[in-house]
């Protein structure tokens, strides 16, 4: 049995799990409607205004930093697999790449981008 087939089977099973669970829940659980029940739960106090608003920019900054390092990891994977055959030469080439990245991290650090404000 090939991996692709198992992947498709697992994918479909996950769909069955969610839909089956939801249907079972809808079938077994009681229902009652009430104008207050559907309101957002904020510890019993009515919500003021919408929650779909601008949000703190700090999270966005970390997402950008994450993108930089995540792409780096992706680019390093092929080298990691072939590390043994590439040897010292490969390591030297990759360390140049790593130094550039560490410089990037050092820059972000120095600029205070890693501080939570």
């Amino acid at each position, binding site marked *: *049995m090939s991996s*692709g087939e*198992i*992947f498709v*089977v*697992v*994918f*479909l*099973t*996950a*769909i*069955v*799990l*969610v839909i089956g*669970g*939801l249907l*079972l*829940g809808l079938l*077994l*659980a*009681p*229902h*009652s*409607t009430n104008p207050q*029940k*559907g*309101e*957002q*739960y*904020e*510890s019993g106090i009515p*919500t003021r205004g*919408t*929650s*779909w608003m601008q*949000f703190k920019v700090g*999270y966005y900054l*970390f*997402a950008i*930093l*994450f993108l930089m*390092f*995540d792409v780096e*990891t992706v680019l*390093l*994977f092929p080298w*990691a*697999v072939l*590390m*043994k055959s590439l*040897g*010292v030469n490969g*390591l030297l080439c990759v360390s140049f790449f*790593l130094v550039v*990245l*560490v410089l990037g*991290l050092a820059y972000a*650090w120095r600029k205070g981008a*890693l501080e*939570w404000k």
Partner: protein
Amino acid sequence: MLELTGIINWIHETLMANIPASWLVSLIEYVLIGAGFLALYAVLALILIYFERRICAFFQCRLGPNRVGPFGVFQVIADMVKILLKEIISVKHIDKVLFYSAFFIVIMGSFLTFGGLQFARGVHGADFNIGVFYLLAVSSISIVGVLIAGWASNNKYALIGSMRAGAQVISYELSAGLSLLTMVILAGSMNLSTIIEEQADAWFIFQAPIPVLIALVIYLIAGHAETNRGPFDLPEAESELTAGYHTEYSGIQFGFFYLAEYVNLFIIAAIATIVFLGGWQPFHIVGADGFNAVMDYIPTWAWFFGKAFALIFLSLWVRWSFPRLRIDQLLHLEWKILLPFGLFNLVLMAVWVIIFK
């Protein structure tokens, strides 16, 4: 021997002998595989919830659930039935499409990761040649679901919880990825079967102790943070945010988040077991044939689940021993401690492989 491969081959041969059409045999086998994964997924979640409640009780000098069935083992089943019977409240003012797709994506991420693991000799899910990469890729789908859940709920607690979860999980994913990358250097392959075969004589942690130990510690901390547990439970900090990103979910919808959270705990332990501690390989000492034969007698699935549950116990221990971090401390730990250490460890491992291999 109590191996599972025998049972699998027996099922395959019985089906082949009794059903003439080969497509029907394949179809039945697909259904059996799906049912097997589903059963393992649910049973593992139940066992983990029981473990969590029981062990947490012992850490706090309580008894935990002990009334329903022997040692309270049926308590989790009762809880599961209860969660199915709870009303699914239809919340107003939400983004309906996103709201109902959130738990779907969360379950999808954890189930696909679960379907890429190796449980025993010959018993495994999808075994891609880029296995480690696949696990990293599909396990990060879940966070999209969490962000969607927080946004679609139109609830301030949920929004704050999901934003915290986003910042936390993506940050710690870097360290988890880097430590797995470090192990790929040692293994020379991303295929999980090959990685496990490489550890037949000695697990990776004994092959290159210093870099592997650093990578293991980094991976366990990062993995622990990715499951939003223990000292890293800011996204659902119940004293600040009621329940974080799943505040608005009720009944079985909440059950899906709960299920995914506990299975993710197992998945982190299972990946750590496969990549660092030899997967299902028994403990071998080179040269000691008698000892190795005794170790081989223990079935491989017992080795795998034994190691995985030892790591899970460690995770629970950490969870109930440390106070919750603040978000600045959390990001400080990742970006200023774990990430530089991870990059350093990557180079250390490369140098180690060049010198000793």
